[in-house]
């Protein structure tokens, strides 16, 4: 259904201009979660939207080459792995599960380490949400598994 490029120069130009800004805003939302509204879930959805917009205007044939569906699955899994390790590594160094204060990062301590742990976890959430949403979209339009 959306295999071919969308036949409108206006749509193509606007989409190609918008996508980098959407991605930049997504990164801002993820990394600014400490200071304002936002965080991993919202930023991950915005990242996924940028890829889905590309799929819609370029068509899946070209877009699947630019960003393969398997890469989405890999991103989702890596995001979950980051979150899981952020939970398990503190246990190995003598803390509780998800106790970021015990992450083995030598040059930061105490509250700063927990600040960093929150950032790591938010990145993991962002990647997992991003991967999952792109995965769902690819499989709904067909051809995601190949």
């Amino acid at each position, binding site marked *: 259904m959306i295999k071919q490029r969308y036949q409108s120069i206006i749509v193509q130009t606007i989409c190609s201009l918008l996508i980098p800004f959407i991605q930049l805003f997504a990164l801002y939302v993820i990394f600014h*979660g*400490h*200071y*304002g*509204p936002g*965080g*991993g*879930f919202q930023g991950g959805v915005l990242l996924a939207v940028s890829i889905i917009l590309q799929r819609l205007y370029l068509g899946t044939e070209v877009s699947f080459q630019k960003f393969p569906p398997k890469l989405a*699955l890999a991103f*989702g*899994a890596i*995001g*979950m792995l980051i*979150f*899981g390790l952020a*939970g398990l590594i503190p246990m190995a160094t003598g803390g509780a*599960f*998800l106790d*970021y204060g015990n992450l083995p990062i030598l040059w930061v301590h105490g*509250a*700063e380490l*927990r*600040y960093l*742990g*929150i950032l790591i*976890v*938010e990145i*993991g*959430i962002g990647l*997992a*949400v991003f*991967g*999952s*949403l792109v*995965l*769902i979209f690819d*499989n*709904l339009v*067909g051809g*995601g*598994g190949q």
Partner: protein
Amino acid sequence: MKWLSAPIMILLVALMLYATSGLPDHADPQAPANVHVSPTYIEDSVEDTHTPNIVTAVLADYRGYDTLGETVVIFTAGLACVLVLMKRRSNDKAAVSKHHSSDHL
């Protein structure tokens, strides 16, 4: 037996409304939910985590276990979607090839 559902429904709604009258007022500072752990979060989160946004501190640090579960749910939903739709697509292909072969005959 169908007429029974209406009185049961009315009874349940009445029960719910009666139970609602026992809830604390909206945004009541003395409500049990607001005097248990909330004051600790509000007073200590900046000192504990250096994060000015209390929501983020609660979501990712104090209640990180909950957030881990949420993320697992989303990722599992994506995986389940892949599994269900992949099966359907391979069935479609089999049906299409069957259709084509019967056309040629």
